[in-house]
């Protein structure tokens, strides 16, 4: 199935490295996230919802996306993925290149999105952070799942602690 078809099934992706549309405004980025939707009023409502989650994006809605800071770009990438009203959202390394404080902010929003009913599949090298908000965790080694379980079990497992959580 080609990549663009997958979106129709309610799956949206926040790609690694954010990949926002740098020369378009914040608002245009969000509008493109709703590319497959036809309900104009629903789209405007979704944009408002995104702005409620990320007030900083509202302040900068007419700014070119490329001029945003790294954290703001990550917020925009997540907001853009939300615009297609996904049932499953794939997040690839959302903490990449961000300051610790921003990582916490982003993660609390990811948790919020999840609590509002969107399933989240998060791939993250910051294991302790990821396990702190996750329900279930899977440890992948060279493409195979070597360990799985509830997030709290994993966080307390000796093997995971040793390999990923620094002792």
């Amino acid at each position, binding site marked *: 199935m080609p*990549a*663009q078809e997958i979106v129709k099934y309610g799956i*949206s992706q926040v790609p690694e490295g954010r990949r926002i*549309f740098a*020369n378009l405004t914040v608002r245009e980025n969000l*509008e*493109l996230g709703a590319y497959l939707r036809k309900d104009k009023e629903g789209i405007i409502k979704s944009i408002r919802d995104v702005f409620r989650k990320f007030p900083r994006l509202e302040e900068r809605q007419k700014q070119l996306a490329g001029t945003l800071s790294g954290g703001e770009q990550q917020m925009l990438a997540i907001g*853009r993925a939300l615009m*297609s009203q996904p049932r499953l959202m794939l997040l690839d390394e959302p903490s990449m290149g961000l300051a610790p404080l921003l990582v916490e902010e982003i993660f609390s929003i990811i948790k919020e999105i999840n609590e509002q009913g969107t399933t989240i599949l998060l791939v993250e090298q910051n294991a302790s952070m990821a396990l702190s908000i996750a329900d279930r965790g899977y440890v992948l080694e060279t493409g195979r799942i070597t360990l799985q379980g509830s997030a709290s079990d994993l966080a307390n497992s000796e093997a995971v602690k040793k390999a990923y959580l620094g002792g």
Partner: protein
Amino acid sequence: MKKMRISKKNLIALAGALAIYFLVSGLLSLGMISKFQEINLMLLGINIILAVSLNLIVGVTGQLALGHAGFMAIGAYVSAIFTMYLDKPFLLAIILGALAAALAGIIIGLPTLRLKGDYLAIATLGFGEIIRGITINIDYIGGAAGMIGIPRQTNWPYLFVMVVFTIVVIVNFLNSTHGRACVAIRENEIAAETMGINTTYYKVLAFAMGAFFAGIGGALYAHYFYLIQPTTFTFLRSFDILVMVVLGGLGSMTGSIIAAAGITIVNAALQDLAVLRMVIYAVLLIVVMVFRPQGLMGTKEFTLNRWVKKRGEVSESAGN
């Protein structure tokens, strides 16, 4: 309310276009435009069509294509066959020439548009040369000597209508969801796919549309200069058109129009200087590129909106 504003804007644009049309018509009928000026007027219009259509491919969709002269050649030859050999009306010939060019655009686009950047440039460059090679070797269309004595049917009304038609169709396309999709592809193809945009479809569509209008440009060219040869459509012509697009600003249609008009006028004005002409032309290009690397207009459009920007912003935020 927003609708009112748009239709008002369209009215102003329409009035402006009609004013230009009648002004030039008047000057032509009064004999105040010399033969030399008339030739350059035709070239100016044709160049606008070519630049705007190439901008759709290169500037908006971000696909560096160097085969525009090839599409122009197809439009020129096909339309000339229909008027000269088959005695069909000019308008029908233009449409068939444009459709043939669009078809070629789809055939070339499907395999080559999976290439990116310089690879696509080389592939489309090759396509332009193939078209030239084919035209040299078909005796039916005159071979290397070309077609001579094509009825001279391109006149100011035809030119004007075709220029306006090209601009209106492409600008409306840009302001639609389809145009947005094309811009998204230029900005980031992978991200565009994750938005659910069928990137192959839009790249081929932009390519076919660009080719269609290049075909119109070619048909108008053939029926004004009544002589077309394979050497009329070398890659240098593709390059000339690309220069206009880059000079005007990639993605800016008004930029393309201004640059196409400007380059045609400068070329005409320097005609008497013979050798020096190319030197001055080149220096001008270098100067513009040094001081405006993003092109004359950047990616911006010169719109009536900008004059009433403050009002526009207020009404837009009120609309939310």
